[in-house]
Every structure is written in structure tokens, then in C-alpha cells.
């Protein structure tokens, strides 16, 4: 077991109403790696991601961060995790800046300015307008911009590119690469094929063992 692995799972299993979605799943991710989870709908991709974040309890096995089960070090682990799920997780009543400020308060603040972040995801013009007035693609970009608001090593993204257009995907593809170069890890699911450095990429197919 390479001790340099940041995120590991040991024979992880997940059951949803009497059906084994996956069993004794063991993966290990060193810094700079990206794991893309693929498989038909309902094969447990989302459940796996939610187990990795600790939102959902695994039915068997354990998730380790730097060699230790995440259950015992919730505060340190969550400092390093950034999760973007199906829901964008942004409040409609607040403006983009207010949403980002809250996201920053919930983790280790990164030293990138909020306006600069909005500029990177070209939402600068909408800084003060309420999220309610944004389109689905813009809301998704705001949700993804949260990744830049905090210093976190592990990005867990569930279908990050839903309702994003071509050049937004390229833009975030670039951001992912920078994150990997900085020694971060990404675990994501995606139907779109994204241009990512092949050597850092490992694919995980779910839905076969069943």
C-alpha cells in the first residue's frame, strides 16, 4: 500500500434496497490523479461519490484519507474536500458574491479574490445579481466556482458538466488540470468525454460486478 496515497477505499460495498450496487471496491489515489467513474444510470455512481464525501454511510468497507478512516477525522477531512453534487447548492435569494462568501466561510479560504474567481468563470458581470435570475448553465458555473473559493485537495464532482456549453467545459477542463498539477485529486462522474491528461486518468467502470 503506497503510503503516499491520499484517498483510499478498502473493499467498499453499497446496497440499495437489497441490491449490491458494488462490492469490495478498493481504489487508491495519489496526488495529481483523477478518477472518472462511469457506468449506466442507477449503477451507484452517485452513491459511491456520496460515500466518499461521508454524506452516506457505506454498507461495508471503509474510506481512508491519508491512511485514516474519514469517520474519525471529520474536521480535517472536510477541510480538504469540495463536493459539487446534482444540486448546485447555491441559494437563489442571495447574489453570486454572497454565495461565494458563504462557501469560503465553510472551508479554508483561498487567497484568490472573489471577483477574480467570478472573472475566471466569466460570471463577473453577474456578481451582485441574484442567483434566481441566472440560467442553469450560469448556476452550474457558480457552483463549480466554489471549488476555487477554498483551498481543498480533493474535489468530488457529480456530473459537473451538466448544462454547460463547449467552451465552459474547456475552461473547467483547464482548471482541473491546474488543480492536478498542484497535487490535488479529482473524483468525478461525467457523460461528456473531457480532454484530460491521459496519464493522470484512471477509469472505474461500475455496474459489471452485479
Amino acid at each position, binding site marked *: 500500500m503506497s503510503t503516499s496515497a491520499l484517498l483510499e477505499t478498502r473493499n467498499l460495498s453499497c446496497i*440499495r*434496497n*437489497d441490491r449490491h450496487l458494488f462490492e469490495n471496491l478498493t481504489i487508491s489515489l495519489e496526488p495529481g490523479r483523477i478518477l472518472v467513474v462511469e457506468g449506466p444510470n442507477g449503477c451507484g455512481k452517485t452513491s459511491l461519490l456520496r460515500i466518499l464525501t461521508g454524506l452516506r*454511510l457505506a*454498507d461495508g468497507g471503509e474510506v481512508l484519507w491519508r491512511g485514516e478512516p474519514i469517520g474519525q477525522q471529520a474536521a480535517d477531512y472536510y477541510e480538504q474536500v469540495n463536493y459539487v453534487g446534482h444540486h448546485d447548492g447555491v441559494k437563489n435569494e442571495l447574489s453570486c458574491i454572497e454565495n461565494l462568501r458563504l462557501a469560503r466561510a465553510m472551508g479554508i479560504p483561498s487567497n484568490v479574490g472573489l471577483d477574480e474567481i467570478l472573472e475566471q468563470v466569466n460570471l463577473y458581470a453577474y456578481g451582485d445579481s441574484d442567483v434566481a435570475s441566472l440560467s442553469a448553465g450560469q448556476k452550474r458555473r457558480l457552483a463549480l466556482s466554489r471549488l476555487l473559493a477554498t483551498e481543498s485537495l480533493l474535489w468530488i464532482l457529480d456530473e459537473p458538466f451538466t448544462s454547460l456549453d463547449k467552451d465552459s467545459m474547456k475552461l473547467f477542463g483547464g482548471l482541473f488540470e491546474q488543480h492536478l498539477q498542484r497535487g490535488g485529486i479529482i473524483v468525478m462522474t461525467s457523460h461528456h468525454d473531457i480532454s484530460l491528461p491521459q496519464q493522470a486518468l484512471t477509469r472505474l467502470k461500475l455496474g459489471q460486478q452485479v
Partner: protein
Amino acid sequence: MFLWFHKFGSPPHFYRIAGKWIPWLSGLFLVLVTAGLFGGLIAAPPDYQQGDSYRIMFVHVPSAWMSMLVYVAMAVCGIIIMVWRMKLAEIVLISSAPIGASFTFLALVTGSLWGKPMWGTYWVWDARLTSELILLFLYLGIIGLHNAIEDKRVAARAVAILAIVGAVNVPIIHFSVEWWNTLHQGPTVTKFDKPSIYWSMLLPLLLMALSFQVYYVLALFQQCRAELLRRERNSKWVEEL
């Protein structure tokens, strides 16, 4: 001790043991309940004040005790679920709920039937009866919440939290209702109490209480076996049956 606790906790093992124990428990229950009924209905003398109506006590008091005992057992299961996440504790908790609710319902019905000859009305806002009524709502809350959640593993944890929160509140509710009762009714009304207890009355009461406890374990094992089959439908050990 922990090894036993763990081995006993594995569903197939418990399923077999419960199966073996049920006939013995039924026999024991029948013996105890006939002895208790004989003692309570025939041997015990009528009370000088209440005549024979006090004999309802032999059913009312044990079911009231059991309604409390079962809730405490469920709260303990709740703690086990939250701390060790033992699957068996989930099964025991949700199987105990209907039994506890039935005991509470019994305590209420027999209590009001006992109240009729004494006070002329079926329902009396007496402290203990009122707490039993609220306890019944707590039970129904637990059963309702468990049915409302599809994923049974999640439902078990929800019910565990509710049982623990409920257990913290039961003494508070009981104390508040007692306090409320003395505030409004004042000491004049004859307190809803058991008549002075002779040995000939106490023995049947204890026998009945013991038989109810044996009955609880019996019904619990029965319900657990059904619940286990329902929950473990396609696991391996069920195939061999």
C-alpha cells in the same frame, strides 16, 4: 462478553436461537399467566372499598409497567444502533414498537374501564393515564416515521434518534403531567391508587407482570423472525432455509 454479544448479534444465528426458544417461551408464558389469573381472579379476596372491580388492576398495572419497559428497551436499542450500527438492534427496535404500543393501548383501555366504576366516567384526566396517552403518541410517532421512510437502513437510524429523544422526554413529560395534575385537581380527589396491598394480591400482580415480560420476549422473537426474513430476503443464509 463482547464475543457473545457479537455472535448473538449475527442475524442467522439469532434467527435459529429465536426459533428454538419460542415454544419454551410460550409454555412458560401460559403457565405464568394461568397462575396469575387464578391468583388474581379467584384466590385474592375482594377489596373492602372497590369490591371486585379492583381485579382489573392485574391487567392494567402490568401493561402500564410494560409500556414503560418496552420504551426503555427501544431507547437502549437506539443507542446500540447509533453507536455500533448493529443490524439486529434495528430489527429489535422496530419489532418492539407495535408490542409497546399495544401495551400502552391496553393500559389506557383497562385504566378507563377501571375508572368507570370508581368515578362514573370512562376517561379521567388522571396523571398516569394522561402520561400513558402521550406515551402512546410517542409510540405511534415511531411507527409512523418508520413506515414513512423507504430505505429501511435509513429508517432504522431515524427511529433510533427519535427513540433516544423520546426517552429523554418521557420522564420530563411524566413529571410535568404529575405537576399539572396536582395543580388543577388538588389532593381532595381520591388518588387513582391501588388498594392497600395484601400478600394475596401482590403475588398475582407480580406473576402477571412476569408473564407479561415473558410475553414481550415471545412476541418480540416472533416479530423479529418475520422482520428478519423481510429484510434479508435475498441474502445467502435465507437461501438455505
